[in-house]
C-alpha cells in the first residue's frame, strides 16, 4: 500500500527537478551577448563633455526620419538605455526587432524631463551616427538578422559637434 505514495512522492521530486533544471533563470548578459537580437558595438567619444550632460543613448530608425515628429515617434527603443560616456570608448547594445535600420544614432541628452513629443528635441542633440563604410558622408544601413545581432557596429560621438535635430529633419519645436 505504501509503494504508490512513495512513487507519487518520487514523481513529484522528479517533476520539481526537471522543471528547475530546464531553465537557469536570469543569466549574465555581456553587452554583445550571443543571444542578443539587436545591434552592438563600440562608441568612441571625442571632445569635451558638456556640464549639462544627463546621458547619452543609442536609438535606431527603420527609415530615416523626415520630421521632428518622426524623430520622437519612430525611435526604437522608445525609452533607450544610456551608454557610459566618461571614458574614451564604451561598448553598447540595443535590443531591436530583426529588420534593416537606416539610421543608428548616438543622442546626447541635456538634464531635463522628456515628454515623448517634438518638444523633447530641445533637450536632445545628435552626437554621432553610424556611417556607410563606402561613403562616410552618408548614414550606414544596419541590418539586424532574425535571431541574431548586428555586431561591431562602431562609430564616433563627438561632444564638440553636437548637432540640432533640425540639421537632419524639419522641426517646429526647438
Amino acid at each position, binding site marked *: *500500500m*505504501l509503494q*504508490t*505514495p*512513495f512513487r*507519487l*512522492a518520487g514523481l*513529484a521530486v522528479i*517533476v*520539481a527537478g526537471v*522543471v*528547475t533544471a530546464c*531553465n*537557469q*533563470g*536570469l*543569466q*549574465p*548578459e*555581456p*553587452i554583445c*551577448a550571443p543571444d*542578443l537580437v539587436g545591434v552592438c558595438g563600440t562608441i568612441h567619444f571625442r571632445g569635451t563633455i558638456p556640464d549639462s550632460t544627463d*546621458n*547619452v543613448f543609442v536609438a535606431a530608425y527603420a527609415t530615416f526620419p523626415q520630421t521632428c515628429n518622426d524623430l520622437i515617434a519612430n525611435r526604437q*527603443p*522608445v*525609452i533607450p*538605455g*544610456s*551608454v*557610459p*560616456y566618461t571614458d574614451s570608448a*564604451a*561598448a*553598447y*547594445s540595443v*535590443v531591436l526587432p530583426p529588420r534593416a535600420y537606416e539610421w543608428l544614432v548616438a543622442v546626447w541628452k541635456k538634464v531635463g*524631463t*522628456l*515628454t*515623448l*513629443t517634438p*518638444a*523633447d528635441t530641445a533637450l536632445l542633440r545628435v552626437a554621432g551616427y553610424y556611417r556607410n563604410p563606402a561613403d562616410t558622408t552618408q548614414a550606414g544601413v544596419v541590418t539586424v538578422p532574425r535571431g541574431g545581432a548586428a555586431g561591431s557596429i562602431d562609430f564616433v560621438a563627438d561632444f564638440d559637434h553636437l548637432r540640432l535635430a533640425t540639421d537632419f529633419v524639419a522641426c517646429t519645436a526647438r
Partner: protein
Amino acid sequence: MYRALAVVLLVLAPVDVGAQGILRGTVRSTQGAPIHGAMVGVAGSALYTQTDISGRYRLAAVPAGEVRVRAAAIGYSPQATVVSLTGGDSTTADFTLEASPLELTPLDVVSTKLPRFGDHPVTSVAQVSEQEIDRRAVNTIDEAVDKVPAVQFLNGQINIRGSTGYVQGLNSRVLLLVDGVPMNQGDRGGINWDLVPVDQIERVDILKGAGSSLYGSSALGGVVNLTTRDVPSGVHERVRFTGGIYANPPHPVWEFRDQSGFQGGGDGTWSYGNETVGASISGGARHSDGYREEDTQQHWQVAAKTRWQASPRTRLDLSGAWADDKYDVPLSWCTQGQCLDLGQSYQPFKTDTGGRASWTDSRKAYIAAHARTVVSDRFAWQARGSWYRTDFFDQRRDTSEFGISNRFGGELRAEAHPDSSRTVLVGTEATFSDVTSDVFGNHSQTEFSAYGQSEQSIGRGGARINAGARIDFLAVDGGSLSAVVSPRLGGSVPLGRAGGALRASVGRGFRAPSLAERYVSLVAAEFGLRVVPNPNLQPETAWSFEVGGTTAPFLHFMRADAAFFWTEARQLIEPQLITVSTGSGAAIQLQNVSEARIAGVDATLLAAPVSDRLKTSLSYTYLATERRAPGSSNAPLAYRPAHQLKLAADYALGAAGVGADFRFASRPERIELEGYVDPRRVPMKVLDLRAQWAHGPLELRLLVANALNYIYNLVPQTLAPVRTTTITAVWSH
C-alpha cells in the same frame, strides 16, 4: 408580514435565564494535546466561541435541554455531540478531535462572515494554519500566504487567481481584513503585509473570487482575513529571535559587496488573562542588509490586544498595532551605463547610480474595537469601529514625496437563526478615507453600504443555498453619490457521507478607484514621464462564476479539490500613455480602459501517504486571460502567468520535522508598458527547504528559502529574493 414580524420578535426575545446553562470543556487531539483556536458552537445558533491556548472553551446562555454541539479545527476532523443541559447549571463537554491532514476547510470564517463547522463553503476557501505559519519561519505573513494554491505575490501585491496583476502598489483587487476589519490603505488601497506582527497571527483565511456581496469594495478578486491570537487565560510570555544570511550573487560579474548580507530581529509578547479580562502586548524590531545594492531595511513594531467579557452574553475586544519601516529604495536594477556595469547589458543586483540614497519611511497604525452580544441562541449582533492611519515619506534623488491617510470604518451587523436550517445576516457599513499628500493632493472618499445574506439548508442531506446582496454608495470629496450593487448566489451539495461535495456560485465584485489612482500627480523617474490625475475614474466591476468540487478521501490517503472559474471584468483601471492637450507632451494616466476575461482551473491534490507523518500537496492553476481595450488588439492580461504549480511536503517525526515547498510560475506573456521598461523575465522556480525541532518550551526552525538560489524577477527590473538561510528560535511559556 405578520409571520415575518413574529419571527423577528421570536429571535429578539430574551430567553429566561433560568432556562439557560453554561457549557464548558476542552478540545484536545487524540494524543491529549490541547487544540488552540478550535471553534466550538451550538449547531444552528448564534452561540459559538474559540478555544484558548489550553484548548478550553466556555459558552454562556446555552438553552436548557438537549443541544447539538460542534467542534472544528484546522487539520482535524470536525466532531459533533449531543449535550443535555440543565437550566442555571454548568455542563462539561470535552472533544477529542482526530488529526485529519486531508481535511480541506474544516473551519471557515470568511465565506459567509459566520463560522462554519465542516460545512462545505459555496465558494473556494483556503487556509493557512498557525502550524503552517510557524513551520515556514516567515518574517511577514505574505511569505506564508504565497504558498496557497492559486495565490501569487508580485513584489508585494497579492494575486488570487490572477486578480490584480501588478500596478506598483497603487491598488489591490484583494481586500485585507484583520479580525474582520478592512485594512486596505486609505489613500492607495494597497496592503501593508507587515502591519500585524507575524507572531500575533493565528490563522489566515482566503476567499477566492468576488466577495463584494459581503465585503464591498476591493473584494473584486478575493478576501484575505488575518485572525490574530486571542488573549489566553493565565500569564504567558513568548520570545522569538531570528537570524539569517543572504546568498551572494551566483556569478562573480554580478557581485556588488565584499561580504554577505545579514538579517535578524527579535520580538516578544507578554499576556495576562482570566475568564473575564485579558490583555497582551508585544513589540519587536528587525534589520535586513538586503540581498541587493541599496536594500537595507529597519522595522519596528508594537501591538496590543485586550478582551473583556462584560457579561455572559457580551464580549468586547480592543486591538491595535503600530509599525515603522525605514528602507532604502533600490529602484530598478541598472542597465548598461546606469552603474558600474562591467560590460553587462544589465546588473540585477545593482541600482542606477543616479538613484542612490533614495529611501522611504513608512509608518502605519490601526486601532479597532469590536463588540458582540448574544441576545439569545437565535440572535446576536455585533458592532465594530476602526481607524487605520498610514504615513509615508519618500526621499528621492531630486525630490521628496509624502502622504498621510486615514481610514475610519464602522459596521453594525446582526445574525439571526430563525430555525436550525436557516441563517440570516444583515448589516450596514460606513467608511471614510482621506489623504493629505503632495502627490495625491488633499481629498476624501466616503462609502456607505448595506448588505444582507441568507443561507438555507435543503433536505436532510446537507445541501445548502446561499444568497445575498450588498449596495454601496460612494462619494468623492463630498460630491454626489454613485451606487454599486453586488449580488451573490451559491450552493453546495454533499456527495454522500464520505465528505465529498459540489459547489457553485456566481457573484459580482467591484473596486472603487483609490484616491491615489484618481489624483496621483508626479514624475515617474523610471520612465521620465509625468503621471497625471484622472478624477473621473469609475469603479471596476466583475462577474465571477465558479463550479467546483471536493472529493471524499480516496485510496485511503488522497483527496482532491478542483474549481473551474470564470471572471468577466469591466472598466479595469490601467496606466495609459496619453497626450495632454493642455500641456506639452505625453504622460501616463490611469484610465478605465479595458474589459477582461480571466478563466481557469484551480486544482489541488492532497496526499498523506504515512498518516500523521508525511503530508504532501500538489496544486496547479491554469489562467487563460484576455484583455479587450478600444484601439488595441486583444491580448493576455499583463503579469498573469498561464501556469502555476506548487508542491509541498512535510514529514514529522516526534518533536522534529522537515519540509519543502516548490513553486513554479510560467513566464508572463505580457507586462505593462512593454517597450518602456526592461522586458527581461523568466519563469519562477523556487524551492524552499525547512526543518524544525521542539523541546519543551523551546522551538528551533531552519528555513532555506530559494535553496537553489534561482535568480529571477516577477516584475520589470526588480530582482526577486535570492537564497536566504534563516534560523528562528521561539521560547513560549
